[in-house]
């Protein structure tokens, strides 16, 4: 093709962001660039950024939707702090996203949208394309609307329909810029619009028009090439956090031979787990959209009592409503998984933003001494493995288990090396068989893990009653005895604490003792790992431990932490893990905290870590 007149520049990574109105299809543009980049062998990390739940009128600042993709010829863990190329479909998008563009970065705008109305809606007094305020960037003015309309003209679509193809034009342009193949997107168009040939054709034309525009325009002298990353060989796919959680449940269901009962009530950003699970009824998945979160958790408890795996997912306000039900689950000692896709709080807070401020709620948000194991996922893909481990713990120990993810993991995507199903460890689950010796069944008898038997209604000889009043050990009868209460409180605590015995020891990356240990948990893994690696590469005496088991914590954690002069805990909250670490291990851990509805940037972390290194 005619790229010969252009200079080709090789990069080891690039970050691009598409932004425009909610209606402009930016999420699709981002997803296509993601898949395509993954397919050509890059490592990829993404950060979709939706407007708040309410829909805003077209062109307004509130209505801006963005999608950031970081693709590289090396392993990466974050969607990137800043972007090399920004595609802005309208003034509002430019206004809210320009800050993320590196100085001198490539800025591609759809000039047509920069009319009086558009500028007003974005509260621009003057037109930024003309007032020189963008001189610090490589500004590329393209009238995408006009070119797209021309490209699809002969198909006789309405103007509205024609304009809907603009995002494909933008994709084509970016695809040329980074030398990406069009076929995955062409395949997508076929799948998606096959039934409406003229629409499919229009999108194809727009896509190619964009690509061609890149080739030919003088304004874009360079083309960039990001080579394939050296990833472990295997089959890969791109997967989103909530999807990974849903698939993890489905996998665990298969591996344990127990169906899923997913009782939930829609809430951002957890709803997609429901949407995803609802598709896979052929895996025997029962999804139940309950009347509220209380019914969601209690129906799941009922299902667990009847022998299915009860799973309930929600976010902040919904989790708050489940507290009483979870207390019951702890008392009944039934397996249950509670997924909290954390979002900005308190109260309704910032529904579409990410945060890590529900850890202490997971620990203590119930009346009485009411311990629950807690796991936290570290990346979109890790949501898959985390729910599988939660399933194991819930069934082995007969206990409800918390899984913490967050809005950033839930909507972010990354390439996933698809596991070989045969290699996935089976989950063994036992149920006592019929009893016919006339002896009363003992529903609160204990095995070596202090777990009680999971006896299924329908089994002859095992009839028994459970409930929320304190129960006598072994018999499970209601018991008001003082000593028994102490024993049961201690037993429930010990059962959860002893899970630590079966946990893998906490690992660290970097020096195994020294000046600074960074202790992170949950969705901040990627940025912390990247920041620490940068400093390690500079030979700094730093190490990184990422905590997955929030309760109980790995048995070796205390000793490990004591090996460092300083322990720094970066969290997207005001120091929740920090309180637990200090209280538990008497280690004067410091905190680096941010509560802005956004993930950490690598640069702010590096800066924070350096303070402890000189």
């Amino acid at each position, binding site marked *: 093709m005619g790229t010969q007149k252009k200079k080709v520049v090789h990069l080891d990574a690039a970050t691009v962001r598409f932004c425009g109105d909610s209606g402009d299809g930016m999420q699709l543009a981002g997803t296509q660039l993601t898949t395509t980049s993954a397919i050509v062998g890059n490592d990829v990390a993404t950060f979709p950024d939706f407007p708040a739940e309410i829909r805003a009128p077209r062109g307004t600042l509130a209505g801006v939707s963005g999608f950031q993709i970081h693709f590289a010829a090396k392993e990466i863990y974050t969607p990137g702090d800043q972007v090399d190329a920004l595609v802005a479909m309208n003034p509002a998008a430019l206004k809210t996203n320009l800050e993320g563009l590196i100085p001198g970065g490539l800025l591609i705008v759809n000039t047509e949208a920069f009319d009086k109305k558009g500028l007003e809606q974005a509260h621009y007094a003057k037109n930024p394309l003309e007032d020189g305020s963008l001189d610090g960037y490589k500004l590329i003015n393209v009238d995408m609307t006009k070119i797209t309309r021309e490209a699809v003209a002969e198909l006789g679509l309405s103007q509205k329909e024609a304009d809907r193809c603009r995002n494909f034009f933008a994709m084509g342009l970016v695809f040329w810029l980074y030398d990406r193949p069009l076929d995955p997107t062409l395949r997508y168009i076929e799948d998606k619009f096959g039934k409406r040939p003229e629409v499919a054709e229009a999108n194809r034309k727009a896509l190619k028009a964009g690509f061609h525009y890149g080739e030919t325009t003088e304004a874009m002298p360079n083309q960039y090439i990001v080579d394939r990353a050296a990833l472990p060989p295997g089959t890969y796919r791109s997967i989103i956090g909530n999807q990974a959680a849903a698939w993890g449940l489905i996998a665990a269901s298969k591996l344990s031979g127990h169906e899923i*009962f997913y009782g939930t009530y829609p809430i951002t950003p957890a709803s997609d787990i429901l949407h995803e699970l609802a598709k896979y009824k052929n895996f025997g998945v*029962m999804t139940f959209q309950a009347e509220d979160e209380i019914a969601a958790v*209690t129906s799941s408890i009922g299902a667990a009592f009847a022998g299915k795996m009860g799973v309930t997912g929600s976010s902040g306000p919904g989790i708050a409503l489940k507290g009483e039900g979870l207390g019951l689950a702890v008392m009944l000692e039934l397996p249950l998984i509670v997924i909290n896709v954390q979002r900005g709080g308190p109260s309704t807070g910032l529904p579409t933003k990410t945060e890590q401020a529900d850890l202490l709620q997971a620990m203590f948000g119930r009346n009485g001494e009411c311990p629950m194991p807690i796991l936290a996922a570290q990346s979109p893909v890790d949501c898959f493995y985390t729910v599988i481990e939660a399933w194991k713990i819930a069934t082995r120990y007969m206990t409800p288990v918390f899984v913490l993810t967050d809005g950033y993991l839930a909507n972010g995507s990354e390439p996933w090396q698809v596991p070989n199903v045969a290699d996935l460890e089976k989950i063994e689950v036992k149920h006592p068989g019929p009893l016919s010796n006339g002896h009363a069944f003992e529903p609160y008898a204990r095995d070596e893990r202090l777990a009680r038997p999971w006896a299924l209604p329908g089994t002859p000889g095992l009839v028994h*009653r459970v*409930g929320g009043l304190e129960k006598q050990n072994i018999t499970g009868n209601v018991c008001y005895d003082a000593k028994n209460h102490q024993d049961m409180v201690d037993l429930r605590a010990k059962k959860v604490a002893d899970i630590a015995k079966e946990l893998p020891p906490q690992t660290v990356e970097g020096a195994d003792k020294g000046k600074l240990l960074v202790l992170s948990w949950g969705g901040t893994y990627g940025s912390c790992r990247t920041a620490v690696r940068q400093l390690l590469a500079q030979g700094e005496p730093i190490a990184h431990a990422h905590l997955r088991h929030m309760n109980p914590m790995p048995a070796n954690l205390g000793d490990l932490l004591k090996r460092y002069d300083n322990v720094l805990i970066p969290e997207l909250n005001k120091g929740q893990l920090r309180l637990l670490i200090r209280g538990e291990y008497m280690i004067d851990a410091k905190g680096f905290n941010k509560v802005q509805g956004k993930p950490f940037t690598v640069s702010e972390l590096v800066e924070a870590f350096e303070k402890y290194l000189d």
Partner: protein
Amino acid sequence: MSTDALPALPVLKAADFASDQDVRWCPGCGDYSILAQMKKMLPSLGIPPHQIVFVSGIGCSSRFPYYMNTYGMHSIHGRAPAIATGVKVANPELSVWVITGDGDALSIGGNHLLHAIRRNLNMNIVLFNNQIYGLTKGQYSPTSPLGKVTKSTPFGSVDNPLSPLSVAIGAEATFVARSIDVNIKHLGETLRRAAEHRGTSFVEVYQNCNIFNDGAFSYLTDRDTKADTTLEVEHGKPMIFGKNRDKGIRLNGITPEVVELGKGISEDDLLFHDEKLEEPTLAYLLSRMRHPEFPVPIGVMRYVERPIFEERLHAQIDDAVKKRGEGDLNKLFQSGETWTVA
């Protein structure tokens, strides 16, 4: 000891449904009679105890499951219908009973009741209505009459009571009935029909709390008044009541009125009960009839068949398996865009 382990047993007896726990209701409590009738009725269903689950909330009434030699859960306040929904969806084979009180079902649990009923799962809900909070020692409940003086309302309650049956019909219940604790034959038969009905069966039982609300229903239970104060509705029969069966209910437009039989009014002029009507309007009308203006209807007011929630839900699953085959993880993982790194 759990006798349900002897499938050999040709027929079950009431005793086979009694657990080993001693019953802890106040002596004279109406709950005893309901417990007795339940145990007496269950054998007639031919379902072994290990196929039965009783789920309750919190309240005196909600202690019920402990006394049944079946599977059971004494859960948390107001949530029994939601828990039972999970049980029934997870294992539709089970015979599921919800035992609840007027506070448990209509105060804190009102929303779950509403939704269980509209979903029409094949289960039975028995509401022990004593018009008081018994377990917490005597506060008024959503069914207590206006002006009721209780611990929490020393000057009398100021909110209008709910009619459990009206609420159930507002949610389009497919089976709605009322009975009375001391009316043992009627109660047993009502429970039996509730069990036999496919879909959510809602039964309100007037129950005397002799400690905190004694005599709340005496006008319906006193030997000498009950014939004039109760209307026993039967499918296809005219609505007649009274000691001498000389009074009846007639429809005036859409409004019921009490008439004397004879004096030119014959049975055919009366309202005939039809529990199978498409629309629940008649059942609603009955649920509105209150003492003293009207005799209080007891019996099955509505009995229709409608598609059942858990059956539809599992039909979708079976259908998906038929169409796409048993879920296969490898297929799932490989679906959509994938690529290989060599």
